[in-house]
Structures are given as structure tokens and as C-alpha cells.
């Protein structure tokens, strides 16, 4: 049955070359933990991606309840956490996932660094990877404000003060992020929401796509 469906689609769209492109790639012995246990260090990148998937899925479910408005944001989070069935689990996954993804990414970065895997010809992939790191930190920073509780507001004020201390463009940057020169309020929340939910995930997916494309094109770095 599945074969018939596959053939039906393949006859019309010739998907076999595409599928073989995805499926056919070698896993060399030195990265396979089944052969050398120490190769578990090669799992960190994949686990980072796994947590990113968890973040996207749990974030989509959070967005079903969350209201990006200073009057209702906190109440919607409180409701989600205390009234909605499994709401605490979904929010917990998003909250802890944000920490775990940083840990995994840190370990992945250290693995690549200590193995010198960023050297020619893989310089570009390293740069894209560091950009992913920055996007992740920015996601953590913008997500921190969204529950609109005391620590969210006050930590964001500190962040904006640091942004403002940038020479020359500090004031403009702060206004861009918070929506006002002085007030951290309604507009700040909607801006951070838009950045956290639309701008940064779009950048993240694009960068991760590039990251994977390059690793497939070049293959994983050889043994030391």
C-alpha cells in the first residue's frame, strides 16, 4: 500500500533522487558511538536540534493560550499553568528546554572547537554556528519578558540599559526594541513577542538550514 502510494507520487514528481539525497549519507566509524563509545560527543549537535524541535512544538502550544498584552499576559500564563490540562508540562518543557538547549549548544561548540573541526574548508559553517548561538541567546532574552512577572520586567529593564550604553546608536537601539525612549510597557511586550515568535525563529530556521546543508555538502570532519 505504502509502496503503491510512493510509486504513484514518484511517477508524477520523480521524488526518488530527492529521497536518496536525504537518506544516503555515510556515518563514518569515528563518529558512531556503537563502535567507539567516546563518539557520544558527536551527539551534542543532534540533541541541540532535538531540543529546538521541542521548543518550536511547545512554543506553538503555548501560543494557543498566551496573550501578548500587559493587562492579560500574566493572567494567561497563570491560567495556562494552573488551570489548563498539562499546561504546566507544556510550559515546563519550553522553560527548561530554553536552558537545556544552551547547555547542549555549549557542549557542541566546545566539541567542534577542541577538535579543530572549524578549520578549512569548514570556516563558513562555524560562522553560521556562532550566529545560531547568538540567535539562541537572543531568543532566551526576549522570551524572559513574556510572562510579564516581576523578574521579567526588571531583567528586561537591565537588558535595555545595557543596550542603551552602546556608543552612538544606543538610544536608537533601545527605542527600536522597547518601542519608547523611556517606557518599558505595552509596546515593549508586543515587540519582544514579535521578535521572539516571528523574527528570531525565522532567522534560526534559515541558519539551521544552512548549517545542515553545509555539513551534508562537506561531510563530517575526519578523525583527529
Amino acid at each position, binding site marked *: 500500500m505504502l509502496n503503491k502510494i510512493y510509486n504513484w507520487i514518484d*511517477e*508524477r514528481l*520523480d521524488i*526518488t533522487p530527492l*529521497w*536518496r539525497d*536525504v*537518506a544516503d*549519507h*555515510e*556515518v*563514518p*566509524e569515528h563518529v*558512531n*558511538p*556503537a563502535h567507539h563509545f567516546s563518539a557520544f560527543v558527536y551527539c551534542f549537535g543532534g*540533541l541541540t536540534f*532535538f*531540543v529546538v524541535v*521541542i521548543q518550536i512544538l511547545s512554543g506553538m502550544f503555548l501560543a494557543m493560550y498566551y496573550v501578548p498584552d*500587559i493587562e492579560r499576559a*500574566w493572567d494567561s500564563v497563570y491560567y495556562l*499553568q494552573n488551570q489548563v490540562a498539562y499546561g504546566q508540562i507544556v*510550559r*515546563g*518543557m*519550553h522553560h*527548561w*528546554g530554553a536552558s*537545556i538547549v544552551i547547555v547542549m549548544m555549549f557542549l557542541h561548540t566546545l566539541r567542534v*572547537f*577542541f*577538535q*579543530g*573541526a*572549524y*578549520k*578549512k574548508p569548514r*570556516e563558513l559553517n562555524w*560562522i553560521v554556528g*556562532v550566529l545560531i548561538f*547568538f540567535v539562541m*541567546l537572543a531568543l*532566551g532574552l526576549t522570551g*524572559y519578558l513574556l*510572562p510579564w*512577572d*516581576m*523578574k*521579567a*520586567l*526588571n*531583567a528586561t529593564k*537591565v537588558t535595555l540599559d*545595557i543596550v542603551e*550604553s552602546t*556608543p552612538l546608536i544606543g538610544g536608537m537601539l533601545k527605542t527600536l526594541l522597547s518601542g519608547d525612549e523611556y517606557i518599558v*510597557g505595552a509596546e515593549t511586550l508586543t515587540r519582544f513577542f514579535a521578535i521572539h515568535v516571528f523574527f528570531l525563529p525565522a532567522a534560526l530556521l534559515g541558519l539551521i538550514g544552512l548549517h545542515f546543508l553545509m555539513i551534508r555538502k562537506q561531510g563530517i*570532519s575526519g578523525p*583527529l
Partner: protein
Amino acid sequence: MQRGKGMKFVGDSRVPANRKPNIPKDYSEYPGKTEAFYPDFLLKEWMVGAVFLIGFLCLVVVEPPPLERIADPTDTSYIPLPDWYFLFLYQLLKYSYASGPYNVIGALIIPGLAFTALLLAPFLDRGPERHPKKRPFAIGFMLLAVAGIFYLTWEAAAHHDWEASKQQGAIRETADIDKEDPAYQILEANGCLSCHGANLEGASGPPLVGTELSVEEIKDISVNGIGNMPADIFQGTEEELQRMAEFIKKIEK
């Protein structure tokens, strides 16, 4: 790839009519024990993912995500703390040559240099050697940076009053308080409300809602003080003290 005359297409589309065989590549001639990604290795990856997911969900179930009380811009006594992975930057800003007039150094120059160096690592460490033992400078700087991050995070966590920060953010219980009650006026007259809040929800002092103390204990604290609360704040009569203590005892969550 077939090209030129004789190509057949599906209908009027540009999809070639002759099917390509759907067979996996052969890796037997590759060096070492090279394995195909699909399906065997992918299955192993999924097993690692499943174990990871179980551990992750255990953490999620054991530790509920924190939520503090709703943001109150008028409360300026709150001491903020960033998420743990920014603690090292936060700690850096506490040192005298990285804060105040030197704020730019701590907030931008040091983190900026570090992150730029990370971004440009392939162009700073240009030699052909990959083994850590043959790259003393790159490895040395990285170890220094990692040690610095761990040290600063540790310092920030050790010098933070976690108990106080838990209290300052706690969701405050509100209770219906009868402000016409003479006992409430006794509280007001003795200045209790300035620390414990007009609804006794707590401010710089703890909340008096649902204290779970006995009348005698409340009387004792009012007269003799406790913790940061000094003695002799209560200046009324014995009868007022009794009435006030009973009033506080009554307030339930």
C-alpha cells in the same frame, strides 16, 4: 544523466518518464566500519533521543516552571537577576573597572571582544593542525574563557541571596480584609501597614495573610519584634494588642 533526443516525459510535464531505481548506496568499499545513515543509524539516533527525552521530561515533571507575581513597575525595590546563562555577564558588570564610568568596558568591550573572537576563530587559528596538543594558543584561550565563565557564574550565584529573591517575587495571597474593623485601625495607627502592606499582603515585611501563628505568638512578635522587625513597634494597650492579634489570626488565604 540522459539528455537530448529520445527523452520521454510524464504527460506534458518536465518529469522524466523513466524511473530511477530506489536502492541505497553501497558503503562496503568505504574505509573503516562506515554505516548508512538510513535506516540503521537513524534508529540509533532515535534511541538516544528517546533516552534524552525521558530524562528531560523527568526534569520538567519534578521542577515546575517558576512564575513570579505580576509585573509592578511602581515597585522599585526589586533586585533583578538574569537567567542563569547570562549570570557571568551580570557578574562582570559588578567589578569596579567594568561598571559605573567604565560600564562600556564591562557591558560591551569585553563581551564584544570575546564573542567576536569566537565568531572569527577559523581566521585567528589558521594553522593546518587540528589536534588540541598542537594548538596551544587556541586551546589555552578557550580554556581560559571557559574557566572565566564558570568562575563568574559561580561568583554571581554564591553572592546572590536566593531566599530574598524568592520572597520578593512570590505571588502574594490576597484576602478580603474588613478595613472598617476597629482592629484594622489599630494596625494602621501603629504603622504596621507601612511594612506589611495596606491589604496585609506584605511589602518590605512579610505578608500577614494566613500566618499560621497562634494569637500568643502574634502578640509576642508585635511587642518584641522578629528578624528585621524591631521591638516596641506596638504602642497600644493590652486590650488593643489582644484584639489586633485575633484579627490577624482570622485572616485566611
